[in-house]
């Protein structure tokens, strides 16, 4: 059992026990309060580049199974846990999380007081951090972390988006164009239950999508800062063009991209929303939603864009969804679905498309 270290930009050093693949990494250290769904989380492209801290102390209890993957990759930079499970419940015939991380060359650190990091993050805001194997490097790593810019320089969406367009014919009446900013399988499945899909790389031009003969456009979930210059130049621009020409639904990062496209602004949350219990108010209803993001729409900036923030986070009052006053546009910050009573997002989108047919 090798020793490794979790190092934070504020100088905190925690010694742990290494698992997964041995590789020094750095990234934003974020926490998720989800109590299960670890495999979904680490394979969700929205988490690309992050050092993910699980607040739940046990990890990998029911193993790893192919059907739970949200993509073909593990996108996180590293995983921080109190304890990982080497002998998972055999109920699903799953593999060990340790092996899975090794296979995907992702490092893990266990034996960490994850609650300590969570509280630090909550109180001070998201920090940069690194998983380090060589004790002698720690001081240098801390210096590097301090110098790292606050916003990711990298265009994370470009890493997770598909490289070429593809179609999925589900034998449905409606066909939607999907701008893949990091499409997770859960959303892909929900879309496939309803529509035929034509999936495009994130930097596809608006006209190309319109030419493909779609009834509406889905802007998907994805990682990172929506206001990154390369995103502004690509997806945001595309969506701006599409907004007057077709029905649009923005999900997760897509929610923010739509807002930017229509003239709104986004900013970084203190420590993000990551977990399965984010309460969202929409009229008299409250939805408990699954979310995974570090940025949010500035509500005030929607003034004059035509978008109305009709879904609000009960706890921090951040924008969780919008609707356009005139145009067929609907967005939400979470993953919609039956178990959170939010399938209405898809249903409303369907109606918008049908109305235009």
């Amino acid at each position, binding site marked *: 059992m090798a020793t490794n270290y979790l190092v934070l930009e504020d100088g905190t050093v925690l010694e742990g026990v290494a698992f997964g693949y041995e590789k020094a990494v750095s990234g934003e250290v974020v926490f998720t*309060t989800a*109590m299960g769904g670890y*495999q979904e989380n680490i394979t969700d492209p929205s988490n690309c580049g992050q050092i993910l801290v699980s607040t739940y102390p046990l990890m990998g209890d*029911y193993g790893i199974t192919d059907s739970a993957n949200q993509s073909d990759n593990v996108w996180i930079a590293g995983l921080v846990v109190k304890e990982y499970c080497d*002998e998972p419940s*055999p*109920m699903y015939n799953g593999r060990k999380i340790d092996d899975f991380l090794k296979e995907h060359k992702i490092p893990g650190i266990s034996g960490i007081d994850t609650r300590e990091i969570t509280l630090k993050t909550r109180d001070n805001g998201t920090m940069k951090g690194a998983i380090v194997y060589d004790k002698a490097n720690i001081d240098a790593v801390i210096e590097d972390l301090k110098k790292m810019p606050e916003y990711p320089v990298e265009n994370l969406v470009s890493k997770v988006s598909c490289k070429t367009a593809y179609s999925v014919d589900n034998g449905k009446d409606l066909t939607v164009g999907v701008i893949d900013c990091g499409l997770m399988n859960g959303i892909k499945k929900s879309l496939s239950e309803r529509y035929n899909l034509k999936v495009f790389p994130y930097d596809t031009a608006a006209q190309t999508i319109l030419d493909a003969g779609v009834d509406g456009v889905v802007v998907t979930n994805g990682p990172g800062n929506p206001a990154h210059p390369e995103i502004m130049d690509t997806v945001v621009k595309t969506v701006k063009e599409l907004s007057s020409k077709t029905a649009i639904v923005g999900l997760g990062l897509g929610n923010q991209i739509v807002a930017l496209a229509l003239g709104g602004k986004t900013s970084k949350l203190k420590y993000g929303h990551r977990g*399965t219990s984010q309460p969202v108010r929409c009229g008299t*209803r409250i939805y408990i939603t699954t979310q995974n993001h570090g940025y949010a729409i500035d509500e005030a900036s929607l003034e004059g864009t035509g978008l109305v923030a009709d879904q609000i986070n009960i*706890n921090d009052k951040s924008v969780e969804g919008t609707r356009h006053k005139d145009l067929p546009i609907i967005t939400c910050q979470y993953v919609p679905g039956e178990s959170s009573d939010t399938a209405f997002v898809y249903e409303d989108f369907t109606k918008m498309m049908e109305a235009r047919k």
Partner: protein
Amino acid sequence: MRKEFKKLMVIGSGPIVIGQAAEFDFSGSQACKSLREEGYKTVLVNSNPATIQTDLDMADAVYIEPMTADIVAKIIEKEGVDGIMAGMGGQTALNICSELAENGTLDRLGVTLLGTQPEAIAKSEDRELFKETMEAIGEPVPLSRTCTSIEEALEAVEYIGRYPVLVRPAYTLGGTGGGIAYNEEELRDICGRGLAYSRIHQVLIEESVLGWKEYEYEVMRDHNDNCIIICNMENLDAMGIHTGESIVCAPCLTLSAEDHQRLKTASLKVIRALEIEGGCNVQFAFNPENGDYRLIEVNPRVSRSSALASKATGYPIARVSAKIAVGYNLDEIPNKVTGTTSAAFEPAIDYVVMKIPRWPFDKFRTVDRHLGTQMKSTGETMAIGRSFEEAILKGIRSLEIGVNHLDRMDASDEEIEDELIHATDRRMFAIAEALRRGWGVEKVSKLAQWDPFFTTKIDNIVKMEQRLANEKMTPELMKEAKDMGFADAVIAKFTGSDEMSVRKTRKDMGIIPTYKMVDTCAGEYEAQTPYFYSTYGRTTELKRDKSKKNVIIIGGGPIRIGQGIEFDYSCVHSVMALQDEGIDAVIINNNPETVSTDFDISDRLYFEPLTLEDVLNVIEAEDADGVVCQYGGQTSVNLALDLEKALEGTKTKILGTKPDDMDLAEDRRRFSKLMDDLNIEQPRSGTGYSFEEAKSIAEDIGYPVLVRPSYVLGGRAMEIVYSTDELKTYVETAVKVSRNHPILIDKYLSQAIELDVDLLCDGTDVFVGGIMEHVEYAGVHSGDATMVLPPFTLTESELAEVLEVSRKVALGLNIRGLMNLQLAVKNSKIYMIEANPRSSRTVPFISKATGIPLAKISTQIMLGKTLKEVGLGSGYKTLDHYAIKASVFPFLKLVGVDSILTPEMKSTGEVMGIDENFDIACYKALVAAGNKLPTEGGVYITVNDDDKENILPAAKSLYEMGFTIYATKGTSTFLRNNDIPATTVFKVNENMGIDGLSLMRQGKINLIINTPSLKSGAVRDGATMRRTAVELEIPSMTTVQGANIAVAAIKVARDQKLGVRGMKEFHR
């Protein structure tokens, strides 16, 4: 939106019984507070005086009255109630509300039922309706048929296609009368019982899902149809063992995210289909082979599981349910834990919670220990850790069963295997033992039907034992062992050291516990509510204002026979008293059911085992000014001496009576000497280290004698023996006597009056809060005896002497705070039986009956106030009314326990009857305790020879009231000779004419007076008859004195209409 009501009623759950314990005091109290803070006028009804919810200031009016529909109707009418909260008092309250709805009372009085509606109750409780409802929303339930006869049950098995089948009676508590039938014979047997227990004479025969996994979801819904999952929980034990009997962890650990979504979606569909507004519990069976699931049960109310979920997450389910019931929606209700967020969220937890049931088999040696679909446990412990191993080991040492680890089991391989397959309370120990013997995780899991995930965790514990035994102790090893929850004492055992040395080594290594917060949100938001658990992490979250004094109250642990909710009541009162003085009150306890572990009761709550190590850790972390050991029953008293020793030289003081003085009261030899010095009589006694010694002591003292082992407390294995033969049987079957385990022998005072005295002492003054006279003669455990406050037969001079003795003992023992005395009076002579230097079981009862908050005043004394300063001084509280305490027993649920009263305590709970008229007070107490006292019909009398003369007045009275009297040969002859006509019945084995059992089954017997012969042992004559009476719920009086008060009560109930009175009316 808030709805308007003139007055709201909260119905409690009555006495503590198996299947309905303190969780409903917790939920009812929360509901009362929740409604009052919204400005509603409230009325509370509960027959249980040991509850916090029956405190005068919990509601605008509090009624301690029998929990029957007609009594509740009277209170509704008297108080002008227009809304009732039905879902806070368990099955008892739901049944009362259903009855009031069915018989039109609610409509007649214009009363709205809040929260759970009668339709929802019916849809979830009536098996057939439940099935229809679930089928309508496409949710699978096990194949089943409702049956009202054994013939129909046989047809149902044909339809299902195979044995085993489950038999589930409708409308019963904790699965009473249910069972698993593996063949026709068993089906006939279980069905017969089940039909008898069901309120609507109905059982469900159901497809077996034995061996499937069991998951539970706690769901909440508001009027706007917003639904949230509070918590999900996983039973370690597979289907077939009642969830109340299972070890349960939260959250679910082996369920994938996808399957969690499926079960969550199903739970939401269920709560919507039942249109429940408030909390609800949904239970699933889950087939690990293929992922199929079945809905097993829905509880449309707060429950034992919701209390557990509240404590496990910090989400106050009862409080929020009450607010929803009066019209608020989830987002309109603040989350008190964070203070900044609302109740509209799903709690996220960042620890492992483990619930372990506490079974009463240490008390009931003759009961079948096997676990099944019927509850046998009386209480439970909850433990929190950051690893599974830590949580389960903390849970085990919270159980108060004399172990602090998965101890070795001295059993053969065959016995271990049998234990794994047919679970009893010992299975978790058997699992560890099997792993120690190298059976391997796979085999053990298969035998026990545990998920290997859990078995592996136990295996990790076993492996750590080996490492501790074989490796050199290093800081790393120590840290790993502590991470896994190993107690210092256990580490000491495996490393050949002692607890205090390990403690020192550990602290020298810098390995000390950190305290983490339970905050409902896994740290995402800052929490206000200081609710902590220990773990060996890196940082601690405990912050406290050092300028404020702090005092720790040691709680009572799990509810078990002998240590019930009464102790929790006193702990809570002590908290209030400390807070009144501006001191931070800190609670350590591990019982998830109780009010004391509600996070908004104390200034800080530590959910921890109550061992020396765990308590010392909290004391050190808190840097406590004081510790209170008087309120947690024997649990806390037993810690006093060790704590004092460990705290020597620190600033922390043990408040109240000095531990050495406590020991003086507890140590027989020292206490006897004190009694001699004070000139107080004690029954003669001795200690025998062998049978021969015991025999000669007994002969010297003279039979009958009271015998018990010296090393257990609370009346366990205590018996009265009448001869050397019986003494021999006792040492052969019940208790091994040896040099290390002597037995104690006391002269048994036959036909003596027994008294319980609870008093306050400040070192100068002695205030006697109450003297309770037992209805039964001495020899019945005071926890079981029917008690009368104030005494009803004592003479003035006897009373004066009792007060004088009490005063002498209190001053002699240097009591500072509360003390309980048990005295006997024979031929006007007072004998000291025992002195308990602590708050007793009867403290809440007296406090309710007299209006004097004894536990609060006792705390003030501990803080240095005098009785004079609190306005009492020396004295005795006289009353102008009678309060009767009657006990309730678990005989129905525990097959194999004889329903007679003995020195060994058997009751689980108590009720109070209070009135100016002694007989009416008795009537109310007896009815509240569940005795269906008849006003006409047949009485079956069979008494031993000594009692024949004494039973005449009662028999005569019954005859005069028109009862038909049946009696066994000897008794009937005696009665006829005394001009009381009686029909002779025969014992079954006499094979002649009418026998008693048949008469009982035919419904011709409505009351039984049976006093067994004076003989010790488990099986006594008439046991079958008493068992049948228990099963048919025929009230049985097993002492002459009990019979006398029952008959007088029947007479008064026939002659006059009973009124209802609120508690404030007694204490004007």
